[in-house]
């Protein structure tokens, strides 16, 4: 499951001047993030997510030998801003997964075999190219407001062997059913971490759409980000469900100096993923909605270096079927402006 790193979206936000001395510091921070000047930037960001809680239709269940997944995605993001208004970023994700999953494997002619797979894998994910357009900006001494539009394409560069395997299991199980038997396309599976949860690639060309809105009054700011991922059919008639993410919240500058800045923000995230489609059938073992809340720190040091770090704690989760859901997410990012 590939999403834009928070840093890419955050880099489209501009946190603008407050007053006299602060003005210099915040302008400097703005330039350090590369938001108000043309040129080349390079970002490295990391998001770690622990999936060790198992929910059945929103209710926690305890299993004797539970599946688990720790996901770590490192994003390498070179960005070129042609001007203050236009920029383009290439997002190259490296996916590391550590996991355990137990599932049935069906075959023709013999009973299904229960297999437990434990391991860790590092793979290139799906690369995305995302453009930014600053639609409107208003910068005054005491306040500021800006809107950015994002649009891009995610390419099927990640490996899809696990999706192929999952679909092949669906095909085998369906071949064992009498015609017309109602079933879910994942009804052959007893796992709560499915193969598609481990796949670094989707095999599909997907659309990425985003909108960022940021506002500031003196030292305080409020921003919001909307991201929508329109999935298309990918490998072997598997289609991930579309995803909508809305995030943002209030924040303020805690430290301002000529050498750097530090801001803190209360960040809320609404993340909803539609159900996946396999061989033309929607699976009721997929799809979830999560509400997160957590702090996010952003800093700048000097004229070229900036970074951020944050934690997302799930406050409320609803899901379909039996799935592992996030316990927490930690994300950090650093940015160098050339």
């Amino acid at each position, binding site marked *: 499951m590939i999403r834009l790193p928070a840093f890419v979206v955050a880099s489209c936000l501009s946190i603008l001047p407050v007053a006299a001395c602060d003005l210099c510091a915040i302008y400097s921070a703005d330039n350090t993030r590369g938001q108000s000047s043309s040129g080349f930037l390079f970002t490295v960001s990391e998001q770690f997510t622990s999936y060790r809680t198992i929910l059945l239709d929103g209710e926690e269940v305890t299993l004797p030998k539970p599946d688990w997944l720790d996901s770590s995605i490192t994003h390498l993001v070179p960005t070129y801003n042609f001007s203050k208004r236009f920029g383009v970023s290439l997002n190259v994700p490296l996916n590391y997964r550590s996991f355990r999953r137990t599932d049935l494997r069906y075959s023709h002619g013999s009973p299904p075999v229960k297999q437990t797979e434990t391991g860790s894998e590092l793979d290139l994910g799906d690369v995305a190219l995302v453009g930014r357009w600053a639609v409107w900006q208003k910068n005054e001494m005491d306040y500021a407001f800006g809107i950015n539009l994002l649009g891009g394409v995610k390419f099927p560069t990640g490996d899809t062997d696990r999706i192929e395997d999952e679909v092949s299991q669906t095909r085998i199980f369906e071949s064992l059913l*009498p015609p017309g038997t109602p079933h879910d396309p994942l009804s052959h599976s007893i796992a709560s971490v499915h193969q598609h949860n481990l796949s670094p690639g989707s095999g599909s060309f997907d659309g990425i759409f985003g909108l960022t809105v940021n506002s500031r009054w003196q030292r305080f700011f409020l921003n919001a980000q909307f991201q929508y991922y329109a999935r298309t059919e990918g490998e072997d008639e598997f289609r991930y469900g579309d995803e909508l993410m809305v995030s943002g919240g209030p924040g303020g500058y805690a430290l301002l100096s000529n050498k750097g800045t530090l801001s803190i923000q209360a960040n809320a995230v609404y993340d909803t993923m539609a159900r996946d489609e396999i061989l033309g059938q929607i699976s009721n073992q997929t799809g979830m909605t999560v509400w997160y809340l957590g702090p996010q720190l952003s800093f700048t040091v000097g004229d070229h270096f900036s970074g951020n770090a944050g934690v997302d704690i799930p406050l409320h989760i609803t899901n379909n079927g039996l799935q592992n859901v996030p316990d927490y997410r930690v994300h950090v990012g650093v940015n160098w402006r050339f």
Partner: protein
Amino acid sequence: MRSPSGFQRLRDLSVLKAGWILPALLVAAWNVPAFAAQPKIDQIELYPRDIAIHFYTEPNRKYELQYTDHPNDLTNHTSNSTWTNLYVADSLPIPMHYVINDSRTNKNRFYRLKATP
């Protein structure tokens, strides 16, 4: 989906008695609480080289699909009976539909499904 057309599909014991084909079906249950449904073999399909046994499971119950090739075991519930596990479906929090394949033999073969608790 694989169609059983051309082969005999066995749905109940009356068909089993009438047919020449060998596999037979027996549904049995042990220690089933009053609120739990009786375990049931839903369907047996016959194919040229194997058979497919279908059964549904309820959440939080363990199921054992067993077979015997000895008709005496149908009435003999002592330790001398020779029922063998063909498949064990562990207790899960979700209902499942299992399809268990078994190879066809030239002998009688009887199946039963046991659920605990």
